[in-house]
Every structure is written in structure tokens, then in C-alpha cells.
């Protein structure tokens, strides 16, 4: 099982995802430089967090034109698993692989904190090891996590069970107070229709080791590995 970790200019969490894939889960991992066109045989592609192109113009707006992203889109269209974390999720919405857009946080401030999420759909390739309605704790660190989409798109996401994670309180209740950035329907992560592309704002790679404060993020990687 091999993870391909895309490196765009300005990616920061590429090293963190590499560390988790290699040292926590003992799997093969390789960086995929944005100017290349070769996924180097990756079984799962990760678009890591960071500030690709400095978040200039719009987060992910320029990154999506990198040559490697064209390969990632084809890989996704052929059913390959693609995980977009934070800036990676923003790039996925700019490519159109996932609907909607990530706007500036309601508070207009960067937020780095641990938040509770409720697992809404444990049938995707990224959440199979969680149970439905599990409450997990994961860190977020972003300026533009305020997910927005028009009414029809939101309705489609709910009807097709494509909302994968929602911000909740520690008891799993979806409340306004537990919504850190103003995202519609407390959306923290969504997948495409086929369930092989997941975009999420929280950082699972930052909570795969108890020394860092929690292991609730392991489930995302274990689910990917299980499906392989």
C-alpha cells in the first residue's frame, strides 16, 4: 500500500502526512512534486494542508493548475482514493471534484484548536473503521474553513449522504456554538458521489499519536488501508 503525497509550492503539512503514513502506519509514502505528471504508483493520493501559492487570490485557486493536479483528477475519476485535508480540500473544490467553496472564517480570524466532529457517514473508503454518529476530536487550523454551497447542492449532499463529518459538541450534538467557522450545516468534510474523494478541513494527521493529544485521526488512515 503506497501513499502519494502531493507537494505544491507552499504546502506545509506534506511532511506531517509523510511522517504518519511511514512512521505511524509503516506504509510506503512518496512526495509527488507539483511540476511532475507521475503519481509514482500511489494507491491513495493525499492533498496535504498548507498555504499553496500563499493562499493568494483564493485558497487553492492557483494550486489547481499544477500539472500533478491534472493527474490527480484523472486518478480520482477512475475511482482512485483522494484525500484532501484543509488546503487540499480547498484545491479539490477549485478543481470541481467536490462542490461548494471554502470562504473566510466567520470571525475573520485564523483558528487553531481541537474541535469535536460527528461521523455522519461511515460507508466511505475513509471512514469505514468509525461507527456512524461517533464523536471524534481533531485539530483544525485554517483561515478559510467556512464551507458554503447553494441550497440545491446542500440538499444533494444531505440526500446522497455525502456529508462525512460535521462539527458537533462533545456529546455529538450539532449546535451553532460548536461551529468554529460558520460552515453551512456545520459541514467539516464531504465526499464525491462515488465516495472515493474526501475533502475535510480538520487535520487527521495531527491526531494519530497520543503524545500529540489524541488518536481519533487514525481511523481515517486505517479505513483507507483496510479498503486496500
Amino acid at each position, binding site marked *: 500500500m503506497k501513499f502519494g503525497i502531493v507537494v505544491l509550492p507552499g504546502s506545509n503539512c506534506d511532511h506531517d502526512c509523510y511522517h504518519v503514513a511511514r512512521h505511524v502506519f509503516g506504509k510506503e509514502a512518496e512526495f509527488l512534486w507539483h511540476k511532475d505528471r507521475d503519481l509514482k504508483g500511489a494507491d491513495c493520493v493525499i492533498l496535504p494542508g498548507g498555504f499553496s501559492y500563499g493562499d493568494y*487570490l483564493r485558497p487553492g485557486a*492557483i494550486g489547481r493548475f499544477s500539472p500533478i493536479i491534472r493527474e490527480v483528477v484523472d486518478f480520482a475519476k477512475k475511482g482512485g482514493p483522494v484525500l484532501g485535508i484543509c488546503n487540499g480540500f480547498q484545491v479539490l*473544490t477549485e478543481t470541481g471534484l467536490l462542490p461548494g*467553496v471554502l*470562504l*473566510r472564517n*466567520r470571525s475573520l480570524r485564523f483558528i487553531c484548536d481541537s474541535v469535536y466532529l460527528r461521523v455522519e457517514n461511515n460507508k466511505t473508503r475513509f471512514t469505514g473503521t468509525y461507527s456512524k454518529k461517533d464523536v471524534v476530536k481533531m485539530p483544525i487550523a485554517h483561515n478559510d474553513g*467556512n464551507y*458554503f*454551497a447553494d441550497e440545491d447542492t446542500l440538499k444533494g449532499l444531505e440526500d446522497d449522504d455525502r456529508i462525512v463529518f460535521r462539527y458537533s459538541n462533545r456529546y455529538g450534538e450539532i449546535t451553532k456554538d460548536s461551529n468554529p467557522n460558520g460552515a453551512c450545516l456545520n459541514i467539516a468534510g464531504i465526499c464525491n458521489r462515488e465516495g472515493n474523494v474526501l475533502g475535510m478541513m480538520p487535520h487527521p494527521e495531527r491526531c494519530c499519536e497520543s503524545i500529540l493529544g489524541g488518536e481519533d485521526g487514525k481511523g481515517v488512515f486505517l479505513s483507507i488501508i483496510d479498503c486496500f
Partner: protein
Amino acid sequence: EVKMKVKIYITLKKGVLDPQGKTVQDALHSMGYKGTDKLRIGKYMEMELNDTSPEEAEKSVKEMCEKLLANPVIEDYRFEVEAA
């Protein structure tokens, strides 16, 4: 071949959330400018296009906006092209 001056206005579509606009409007109210309403904040870009023609400039600026400068999901764009 001439040099053209281009002005581009990117605005949020109606109904799209504008966290910045709302916060700045609240601040203006608290500063005493109670009459402020429907404040929306977008992008204003200026640039030059070298060795082109008015028609060609119109075409390429339109493409730039469609492909990169505006996000069609949430933004509208308009632009003005004039000889430099």
C-alpha cells in the same frame, strides 16, 4: 500591437455569504455610520496587456476571469479594457 490598460471587478454573487462585508458593516455602524447597508467586499484588479489588440485583449481577459480570476460558483466578474 498596442498596450492595453485593464480594470477587473470581481464581486460575490447575490445570496453568497460575505463574512468580511458583514463584519466591516457592523464596525461602521459602531463608529456611528448607521445608514450603511448591503456592504459587499470584492476584488479590484488593474493590469496592463502588452502587444495585443482591443479585440484580443477583450478575449484573453474574459478567459483569464473564467479560468482563474473569478470562481464561477460564487463570483461574478466584469472588466474594462482601454488603450494605455
